[in-house]
């Protein structure tokens, strides 16, 4: 029985220019689940993650990570933003991007050293990108860029991982490589939250799911709540998805 609550969201409301994009969200995510957040475009999936991580300021509500505010628990949380949110022409190498994952523990001013470099190399190895460590990031394929982002999160050695559409624009090989790493994380009792678009793969990849469309539609184990009823409520049209046990 999963009893520890990793993330608790209470009455969270977020607005852009006074237009609510997330409305009164309550959410309890137990420790050690691999959870998909699904919903149509503009449903507020990324916004939910960003609000939990303190990147956006909600107009109401609160978030706690293992019972404390995010500011106090930063070290427990790793974040993989959407690949498209950064400029891949930035003058830097794959290794350097992965090293950025160590900056949080270093804090202000202190610089990464050999210890951080060793961690980054290990993470690159884990995602199969070690041969590319000195490659300029614009010279990497989309799938490779996504792996670099994943390695950067792994370096943080966190308890909770947030990922914003990690499967977007990657080939099948990378998708499998990523999902295997995510499943490994879950085995190690880490909590992984993924904004996900491909409904077909939800039952196969995830054990927990949250349906979101400005309001929370449902949240719970995939086998209990991933059904036509919730899909229809979320997307407004009838989705036929069979659930594989």
């Amino acid at each position, binding site marked *: 029985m999963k009893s520890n609550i990793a993330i608790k969201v209470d009455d969270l409301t977020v607005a852009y*220019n006074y237009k609510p994009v997330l409305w009164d969200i309550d959410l309890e995510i137990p420790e050690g689940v691999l959870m998909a957040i699904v919903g149509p475009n503009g449903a507020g999936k990324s916004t939910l993650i*960003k609000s939990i*991580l*303190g*990147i956006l300021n909600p107009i109401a509500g609160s978030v706690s990570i293992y019972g404390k505010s995010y*500011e106090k628990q*930063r070290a427990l*949380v790793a*974040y993989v*933003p959407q690949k498209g*949110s*950064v*400029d891949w022409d*930035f*003058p*830097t*190498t794959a290794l350097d*991007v992965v090293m*950025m994952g160590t*900056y*949080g523990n*270093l*804090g*202000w*001013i202190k*610089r*990464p050293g050999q210890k951080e470099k060793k961690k980054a190399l290990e993470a690159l190895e884990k995602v199969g990108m070690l*041969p590319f460590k000195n490659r*300029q990031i*614009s*010279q990497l*394929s989309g799938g*490779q860029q996504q792996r670099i982002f994943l390695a*950067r999160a792994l370096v943080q050695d966190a308890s909770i991982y947030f990922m914003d559409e990690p499967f977007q624009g990657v*080939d099948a*090989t990378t998708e499998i490589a990523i999902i295997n790493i995510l499943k490994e994380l879950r085995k190690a009792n880490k909590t992984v939250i993924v904004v996900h678009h491909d409904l077909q793969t939800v039952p196969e990849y995830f054990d927990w799911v949250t349906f979101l469309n400005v309001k929370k539609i449902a949240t719970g184990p995939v086998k209990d709540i991933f059904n036509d009823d919730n899909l229809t409520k979320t997307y407004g049209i009838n989705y036929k998805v069979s659930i594989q046990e």
Partner: protein
Amino acid sequence: MSSAQIEIQLIASLVAIACAIPGTFLVLRKMAMISDAISHSILPGIVIGFFITQDLNSPLLIFLAAITGIITVVLVEYIQKTGLVKEDTAIGLVFPILFSIGVILIAKNANDVHLDVDAVLLGELAFAPFNRLLIAGVDVGPKSLWIIGCILLITIGLLFAFFKELKISTFDAGLAASLGFSPAVIHYGLMTVSSVTTVGAFDAVGAILVVALMIAPAATAYLLTTNLKRMLVYAICFGVFSAISGYWLAHWLDASIAGSITTMLGLLFLMVYLFAPNKGVIAVLYREKQQRTEVSLLTFLLHLRNHSEEEERHVNHLNEHINWQKVRSKTVLELALKNNMIVIDNHIVSLTEKGKDFTSQALDYIITNEDSKIEHMKDDFFLFRG
């Protein structure tokens, strides 16, 4: 060289370094135009500071001008956030208004003092050595040298202390925020440094040249390297080179120093734009030409692989069979021979083992797009470098 000449070159070089550092980050943050806005809109700050202190080199003036610079950034962001206009429009709205407030203030109150719009916009480096700093009656050098020297020291100190933070918030603001490095703090820090540098430099080189010194060296360096530290070093070198060569160009032409430095910056950028090894125009054209040839080579090899009959592989009929002109056939044939991919025996072309391997590997890559298998081919062929 006279001591005045040395002093002028020293001031110009220090200004170039002080500008190149924030300039590099502005270019990477796609905020080059903000430096233009700041350089103009600090005018009212300078004017008000001057009215209070009656001294163009007073720290108060720098402080007030830096505040106007920050106000510019805040106003631009505020207007932009309304969603009614885009960022470039917001910049175009804000800085002319602030600038014209400064112009009116000067026209109304400063007709008979040493402050005019020309001096602010263009500066006059040649006069910089006349304005000496006296400490207890001892001449310790030109005032602008001390001002820009101090600003440069602070800038370098901040760069060393916050290099990591600047890098992460420039590359990935979202991650920076989630790790607790407030992108807003770093953003406004950078804006403050840019404003202070602009004010410190305007007296020596003028507000327009400050923009050139911030943007051009960084943009030039960007074409030459894929490493942030190196980009900073290159930008600094380009800035200093332009400052010194620009000075001598002005000396030789008997023209404005600021104008000559900017001209050198432009020329330098043009040269690099044309001749940079990877991103330069000529390199790109060359690469495209090579890629075309390599595609032809591959087509040719495939043709050989798919046809065992001799009439399809006769040297003189190749152009008919794959529909190429003679010149192209000849180039491709030579390229394949040079790489030992084919042998020609009695006018019949055949693939060698190496040619067969290459063809299958290249095909595999094109079909599967798996990068790792063709690493060794990237050095020889442009086609596989993405």
